């Protein structure tokens, strides 16, 4: 107890997060079950997804207890993916446009 050995946190913290993850998963399943559609559906899915991912990384993977040098080294590089997603959307839209214009519909 006297020494800070590795990551030591009370078990109740984990049980709380476990419970929250269950609630969030149920919520995102309910989005599908009750056929929530369009923008409300997509925003709810993304909100629940990000909350779950955040809880897992922060608490289960102990990221909030690490030094900031570690946090930034691991959490900043994935931001590049936003650029990658943007490129994917442009590419996908362009392909769809070409298919609709130059090929018979539905092929």
């Amino acid at each position, binding site marked *: 107890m006297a020494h800070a*050995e590795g990551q030591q946190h009370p078990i109740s913290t*984990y049980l709380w997060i476990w419970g929250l993850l269950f609630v969030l*998963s149920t919520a995102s399943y309910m989005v599908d079950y009750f056929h929530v559609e369009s923008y409300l559906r997509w925003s709810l899915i993304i909100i629940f997804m990000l909350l779950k991912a955040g809880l897992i990384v922060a608490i289960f993977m102990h990221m909030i207890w690490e030094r*900031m*040098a*570690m946090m930034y080294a691991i959490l900043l*590089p994935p931001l590049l993916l936003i650029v990658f997603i943007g490129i994917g959307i442009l590419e996908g839209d362009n*392909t769809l446009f070409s298919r609709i214009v130059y090929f018979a519909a539905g092929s």
Partner: protein
Amino acid sequence: MTESTLTDTGDVQSRPEGWQGVVADWGSDQRTFKNVPWGKAMMWIFLLSDTFIFSCFLISYMTVRISTATPWPNTSAVFSLNIGGNDVPLILIAIMTFILISSSGTMAMAVNFGYRKDRFKTTILMLLTAAFGASFVGMQAFEWTKLIHEGVRPWGNPFGAEQFGASFFMITGFHGFHVSIGVIFLILVARKVWRGDYDRNTRGFFTSRKGNYEIVEIMGLYWHFVDLVWVFIFAFFYLW
């Protein structure tokens, strides 16, 4: 006590916190990641690279889904199961999600008991995690079998856009492979914990290094990452 203490990770008491800490830690001529054993830093860096691999899959899936002129299959119906005469949408996927979250919970507690050197509880919780993981892979195998019987192939399927099969098998297959490797990894570490290798400083048969309970946390990072990836697959592939 000194025999079994964990890796010396450098003195952090006197170092600045926050932004100044970032600058100080990244400064020069020192190990950057204080407070973290090298194995854990390496696992994080591996997971970062794995993040990019899974992102490549999910972004390719997004791109092909945007680009297809035929409608995408309705996943809610494709993945429904007939229970008692009713089609319950996505029920198997929901159960798999809950199982994987539960396995993450037991893993987090195993890490905790590992640092308390409670061998019995650590082993039991790790084996429980492995059992959850194995049942997850089992359900995935069931789901693959069901879809293959219904005629879903990487090059086409009876429900809609042809790209569905390729995306499905690639993404869930790679994730299932990660879970399977994790189950094997869990069983190996659980066996070592049970034998007391980390209390007696037994050298590993492969690396000839003395292990300690940090490996349980490193193992845990991998396992939580597998759960994390499933969160994104569940949202983007199954619910979208």
